[in-house]
């Protein structure tokens, strides 16, 4: 019994240490999980923008071909894809790498998260379009899944700070790449107006700016491609309106149908542009959220300050802002089509 009394303070210290480790872990793990949710949603959103732009361009060309047929032409129907396989692969690869990275961060802290503030990411992805964004790699990359959290007692207390420190290093090393990825996607999404004096020169690449917030866009990217496609489609419809109106007697039913389609297209085009613009804002928020994670780890878990999880303050922190924006973009995209 005497031995137990001597050992009691040691157990108490271990208990307190475990409490400190767990407190830090819960906050950081929740934030990492929230960030991961946001990344998965952003991957789906960006891929969807590329698909929608490709489809809008194809639809505009298809409607032009249909009008050519109606006017007695025999046009070539071989429509090449707007984006090359290399274009799509370069972007899907980096989004997948980011998803794996954020998934592994989450897995390394698995079981230490308080509660997921955003749930049902997979459900939302299913809704948007099956196969739009392949998360199978990140979800199957569970090599560190629950390993640390499944440990108990001394092992967990001794290993958790070491793991947190290593995760801090990983996050700090990854940060420039996360920012570069966000900047490149920001440029891809583009603008319908020139914001930079560099627009007459070579294509904008990362050497032209130091951070995502400094980027001044040139006319181009998905926003301009989409806007051009919608405009071309509207012109085709307007030409159909002109042709049916000139008929004797005028084809009133046909004209009404085309006018309705024009109005619908205008509205859809405006909504899609607003969502793509929202995605650009979310990319800036993504960088801020990752920076917050980097600061939370601080490269050293013992010095890291846990992020506040108070619901009121939670809504304003960069990680929640990013995760909420990404989730909202998914909802908006589901509504627009």
């Amino acid at each position, binding site marked *: *019994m*005497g*031995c*137990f009394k001597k050992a009691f303070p040691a157990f108490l210290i271990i208990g307190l240490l475990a409490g400190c480790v767990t407190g830090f872990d819960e906050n950081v793990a929740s934030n990492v999980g929230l960030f991961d949710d946001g990344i998965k949603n952003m991957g789906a959103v960006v891929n969807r923008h590329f698909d929608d732009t490709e489809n809008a361009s194809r639809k505009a*060309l298809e409607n032009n*071909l249909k009008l*050519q047929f109606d*006017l007695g*032409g025999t*046009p070539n129907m071989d429509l090449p894809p707007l*984006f*090359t396989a*290399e*274009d799509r692969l*370069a*972007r899907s*690869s*980096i989004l997948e*790498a980011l998803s794996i*990275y954020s998934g*592994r961060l989450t897995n*390394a802290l698995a079981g230490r998260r308080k509660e997921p503030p955003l749930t049902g990411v997979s459900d939302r992805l299913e809704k948007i379009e099956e196969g739009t964004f392949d998360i199978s790699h990140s979800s199957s990359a569970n*090599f*560190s899944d629950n*390993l*640390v959290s499944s*440990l108990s*007692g001394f*092992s*967990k207390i001794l*290993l958790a700070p*070491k*793991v947190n420190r*290593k995760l801090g290093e*990983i996050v700090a*090393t*990854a940060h*420039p*790449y996360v920012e*570069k*990825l966000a900047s*490149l996607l920001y*440029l891809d999404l583009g603008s319908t107006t020139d914001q930079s004096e560099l*627009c*007459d020169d*070579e*294509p*904008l690449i*990362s050497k032209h700016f130091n951070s995502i917030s400094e980027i001044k866009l*040139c*006319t*181009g*990217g998905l926003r*301009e*491609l989409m806007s*051009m*496609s919608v405009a071309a489609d509207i012109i085709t419809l307007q*030409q159909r309106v*002109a042709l049916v109106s*000139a008929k004797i007697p005028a084809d009133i039913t046909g004209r009404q149908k085309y006018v309705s389609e024009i109005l619908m297209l205008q509205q859809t085009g405006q909504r899609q542009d607003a969502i793509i613009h929202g995605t650009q804002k979310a990319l800036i928020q993504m960088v801020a959220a990752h920076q917050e994670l980097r600061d939370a780890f601080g490269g050293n878990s013992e010095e890291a300050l846990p992020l506040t999880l108070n619901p009121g303050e939670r809504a304003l922190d960069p990680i929640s802002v990013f995760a909420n924006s990404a989730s909202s973009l998914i909802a908006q995209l589901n509504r627009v089509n």
Partner: protein
Amino acid sequence: MSSSYREAYSDLLVAQKLLNSQDLSVLDPPRQLEVVQMQGVVFAEIQALLVQRLSARNEEYSAATEGLQQSEAEFLKIKEWAESAENGEKIFGGILKGISILLPLL
């Protein structure tokens, strides 16, 4: 012949504007078809030109992807630590069990 991207883009926009301003209903059928064909060609050219600028960033994407993938090795270290600790825990668990049997006897 346009000498730069900007010139080519501007020229195509001018051509598109001219074609789009044409009222098809006042043209004869062969001319109508010609205008619509040209609209399709100019539209496809504009789209291809815009995509060229996007494709110019493909290499930068590849470099950033490789950078992100560097974290793989570091995550692997965490896995190894955790596995090693798990093994240690099994041994430690056995010792603890022994102590718990011994403590009441002391």
